[in-house]
């Protein structure tokens, strides 16, 4: 079977950052593979190593800059990659439906049996693309999966969904399916030197809207960010000043007052 993994390059803000207009200043952002997607890639590669998946293809919506991140996923064991970008996507804030339109077109080309993606992206935190995609392409789905056991012969994925409060839901999902993967489902590997070398030779197919048979209308976003600001701190904490020794001394007093360590 073929596994398609959605991989996002996410931006993380430095501790000190400036806001320019409706985004954080480019110079204060670091880019990296989305943490949740790292687990999704690992889950897919493990399926390949177990002989369940024949091919693992990643798909990323992002500009050329994202290729460094895509190479990371390839170095960890994905076979090849598709990168979708178009100037129509530049600058705006893509809504869920427009990302789904792009992924739908790639699914039509690749015809995967299983689509894996992270539960959410660390930067925008929507947590919606996978489940919306499943609806669009007529796949089954499960969100927030923290245990995965694929029975390819039976065409079923046995999953656990991580609910709130230390409870897991056990669910059987018919394939083809989209699963959103939670952190902790596995231990994502570090790319080996050999993997990194091999990744340089793996294909990253760049596609724009017309390659996918889409137009700018298909990715017109219903969402516009109108403001971005740092939330006002609601802190009324007593900040204990001084060097490590002084502040530890004061904190020890506080703790003893509360009867701790007495």
């Amino acid at each position, binding site marked *: 079977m073929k596994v398609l993994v959605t991989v996002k390059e996410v931006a993380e803000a430095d501790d000190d950052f400036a806001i320019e207009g409706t985004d954080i200043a480019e110079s204060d952002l670091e880019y990296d593979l989305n943490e949740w997607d790292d687990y999704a890639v690992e889950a897919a590669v493990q399926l390949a190593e177990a002989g369940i998946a024949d091919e693992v293809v990643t798909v990323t919506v992002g500009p050329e800059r994202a290729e460094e991140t895509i190479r990371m996923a390839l170095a960890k064991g994905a076979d090849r990659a598709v990168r979708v970008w178009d100037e129509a996507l530049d600058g705006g804030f893509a809504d869920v439906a427009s990302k789904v339109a792009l992924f739908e077109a790639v699914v039509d080309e690749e015809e995967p049996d299983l689509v894996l993606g992270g539960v959410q992206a660390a930067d925008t935190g929507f947590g919606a693309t996978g489940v919306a995609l499943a609806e669009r392409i007529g796949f089954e789905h499960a969100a927030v999966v923290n245990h995965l056991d694929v029975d390819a012969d039976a065409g079923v994925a046995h999953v656990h969904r991580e609910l709130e409060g230390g*409870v897991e839901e056990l669910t059987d999902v018919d394939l083809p399916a989209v699963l959103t993967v939670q952190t902790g489902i596995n231990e994502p590997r570090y790319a080996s030197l050999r993997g990194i070398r091999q990744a340089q030779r793996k294909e990253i197919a760049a596609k724009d809207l017309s390659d996918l048979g889409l137009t700018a209308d298909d990715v017109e976003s219903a969402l516009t960010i109108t403001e971005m600001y740092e939330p006002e701190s609601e802190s009324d904490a007593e900040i204990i000043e001084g060097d490590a020794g002084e502040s530890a001394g004061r904190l020890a007093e506080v703790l003893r007052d509360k009867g701790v360590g007495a």
Partner: protein
Amino acid sequence: MADVLVAAEHRRGALRDVTYEAITAGRELADARGGDLHVAVVGGDVEGFAEDVNREGVDAIHAVDDGEEFDHNAYQAAVSTLADRIDASAVVLPNSVNGLDYAPALAEDLGVPVVTDAVGIEYDDGLTVTREMYGSKVETTVDVAGDRFVLTVRGGEWPPAEGVGDATVEAADVDIPESGARVTGFEEVGGGDVDIADADVLVSVGRGIEEEENLELVEELADALGATLSASRPIVDNGWLPKNRQVGQSGKVVTPDVYIAVGISGAVQHVAGMKGSDTIIAINTDPNAPIFDIADYGIVGDLFDVVPELIDEFA
């Protein structure tokens, strides 16, 4: 088209609190648009749940008697059908694990935008949602085009609906197609030797500890204070501590007398599990870390400098 539809959430026989919060958010939106507030209860003890959600501000309750537990297929079919039947302008759902298991598909089904994890809403000529980005470092306002949408609301941001309402209650007939995803059971995780929910004092460790071998340092602190060791999610994801030590939304909710957060930034999912602690102490290098927003005492500093000194104080 001004009415708002909220869907209740329940698990293993009990409504979840986020239901009442979503009702409050739904009422706010219905008021802004001059519409009625409808609540759907799907599956389980629908009669009992209908009584539970009949709180002030609810105008109509629709009971869909199908199945016992949450099933995204049934929820999507029920809410989608009801939204069209009452011509709802908005569907408001809890931003929970189950909410996110069908809200995006529902929006796709209805052909409307979805905005998740709202912490504030305003409706003037259109909807403006306040939500966080970049791991809670910033807030944004997002304008939503069109007058119909699906919204999920973060837990703990709206007060729960209270009082007793005088809503109409009716059984709703909905055609629910067969599902290709079947719930076969539930599993409690994180039993084991220690129940961190019983501890009076917790030393809780987060990503700031950097390496597994550094855990010795916080173990030593917990010993010196007679405290129990707990952790935030990344420590458990890495397999450095077992799941029964995890504090947060998907782990344990704890309310100790003293909670000492060491190298924990205070992501919303973590805070949901410990904000009820009597006294919260935070040690973190980043002065902007959200953990300081809920702390009573804070040290802005490197845990590798502060913790050894603190251990010495109690040695």
